[in-house]
């Protein structure tokens, strides 16, 4: 069980956030959920369209630490999905092949709302993580079953698998799943892959993933261990990105600029006298 403390909590503002106000690229504004709510109220035609030159991404939560399964389980106390969850968690060790169907059904049975006791977790993802944890299989079997659940999962299921990886035995054996997520352009999957599970990523792929976050709009706040892992090569890559953006007179995301400044400060020889 991994109990690494949370590197960047939602409640603590990291060093590289210099402006606590919401950060947005000029021109981007309206969120899609609000747009849909407008549609349901029958007021869609008059509402300002959310379509902007820089569309909004439905990402994601801060880089929550991998919670021990018992904390996720306890968060379901009194939750409407709890009875279903309890019954399937009991049944699963005896019939691990059921995991595919149960994994697919989890959001319908447990809902998709936030679990207040575990910030950064919603019911469907927490339930799916618990399902994988409950398999309790020998290591090799667990890895192949987890791969299969990921392979046949929709985007929400894939994301739950990525978030479960740090809780599972030998999760580094599933590094190919992280590579798959980094290859996609789906910000939800990328955000999950750069969370605590990213410990299994090699440094080269990890740097690519961080740069990809900058490109597709995953806030760097979601990258686990950023302060420890950011190195001179990442600094060089970020500097190149910033030069390109400035040459094109395009905005540089504030978190990327702040990270670059921090890395430059760290690597500059100390000026004394």
């Amino acid at each position, binding site marked *: 069980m991994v109990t690494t403390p949370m590197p960047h909590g*939602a409640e603590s503002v990291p060093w590289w956030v210099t402006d606590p*106000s*919401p*950060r*947005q*690229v000029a021109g*981007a504004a309206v*969120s*899609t*959920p609000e*747009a*849909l*709510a407008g*549609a*349901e109220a*029958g007021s*869609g*035609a008059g509402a300002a*369209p*959310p*379509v902007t*030159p*820089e*569309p*909004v*991404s*439905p*990402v*994601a*939560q*801060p880089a929550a630490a991998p919670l021990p399964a018992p904390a996720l389980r306890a968060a379901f106390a009194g939750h409407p999905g709890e009875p279903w969850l309890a019954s399937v968690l009991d049944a699963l060790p005896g019939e691990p092949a059921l995991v*595919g*169907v149960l994994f*697919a059904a989890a959001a*319908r049975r447990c*809902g*998709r*709302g*936030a679990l207040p006791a575990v910030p*950064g977790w*919603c019911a469907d993802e927490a339930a799916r993580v618990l399902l994988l944890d409950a398999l309790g299989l020998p290591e090799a079997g667990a890895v192949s079953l987890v791969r299969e659940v990921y392979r*046949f999962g*929709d*985007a*929400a*299921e*894939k994301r739950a698998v990525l978030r479960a990886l740090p809780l599972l035995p030998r999760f580094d054996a599933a590094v190919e799943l992280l590579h798959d997520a980094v290859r*996609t*352009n*789906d*910000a939800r999957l990328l955000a999950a892959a750069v969370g605590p599970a990213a410990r299994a990523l090699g440094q080269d792929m990890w740097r690519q993933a961080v740069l*990809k976050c*900058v*490109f*597709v*709009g995953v*806030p760097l*706040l*979601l990258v686990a261990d950023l302060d420890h892992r950011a190195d001179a090569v990442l600094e060089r890559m970020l500097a190149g990105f910033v030069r390109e953006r400035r040459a094109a007179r395009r905005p540089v995301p504030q*978190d990327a600029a702040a990270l670059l400044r921090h890395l430059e400060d760290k690597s500059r020889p100390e000026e004394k006298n």
Partner: protein
Amino acid sequence: MRIFDPHVHMTSRTTDDYRRMFEAGVRAVVEPAFWLGQPRTSVGSFTDYFDSLLGWEPYRASLYGIRHYCALALNPKEANDPRCRDVLNVLPRFLEKDNVVAVGEIGYDSVTPEEDTAFAAQLALAVEHGLPALVHTPHRDKEGGTRRTLDVVAESGIGPARVLVDHLNETTVEAVLESGCWLGFSIYPDTKMTADRLVGLLRRYGTERMIVNSAADWGHSDPLLTHATARAMLDAGFGADDVDQVMWRNPVEFYSQSGRLDLGAHQAPDQDFAGNSVRRGGS
């Protein structure tokens, strides 16, 4: 005006289409699995396609303010290819996914014995997985194919209220009305059905169980023809409530039978983190 396009192949469309659809009032779509213009030769091509309909495409749609659901099936054309028939064996796993609100498109293309088998098997899958069915009617021998479709639906045991028979025209509308199935009309620039012809049908047969789609794909088609049809209804004297029934409430009622249409739960708790979920515009 709010529009639910119950049949549109967004995989074949650009992001410009998503922008224009949103501007025209489209807030939700269903993308049924069909063929891609080029025959596929393995089950793997289908599972990758299904993954795309369950992963990338709804994500892409969400970036433009549109909720994307899908219907999955082995389509009638490719049901004739023995290399594709095993898709029927992988479908049960995919039909359990949250975003799947129907089995479709199923039905007939050339009305072969192979199509009979796949059609019946997939109506049974719809019953088994608690899903409604979206049924394509053939281009050739449409009247004969539609009659046969309704016979197979009646034999299958799925209730007619859980079946949407699509691509109807003046010659097939009455048989489907009598069957109790929902009636689908694909508004095309100049083939299957046009906005003006549809308005005539609505005048004659009313707005109940009537569903309009663009069926836009990689061919000569237009995802804004749902909106054009709504305008044509208003111009012809239909009220805003009639338009809302045909363009939104009817398709919502049909697909809600899946129990998976969740237009209110669009917002996950993680969708806007500290106002900092702005997409920066790709690479």
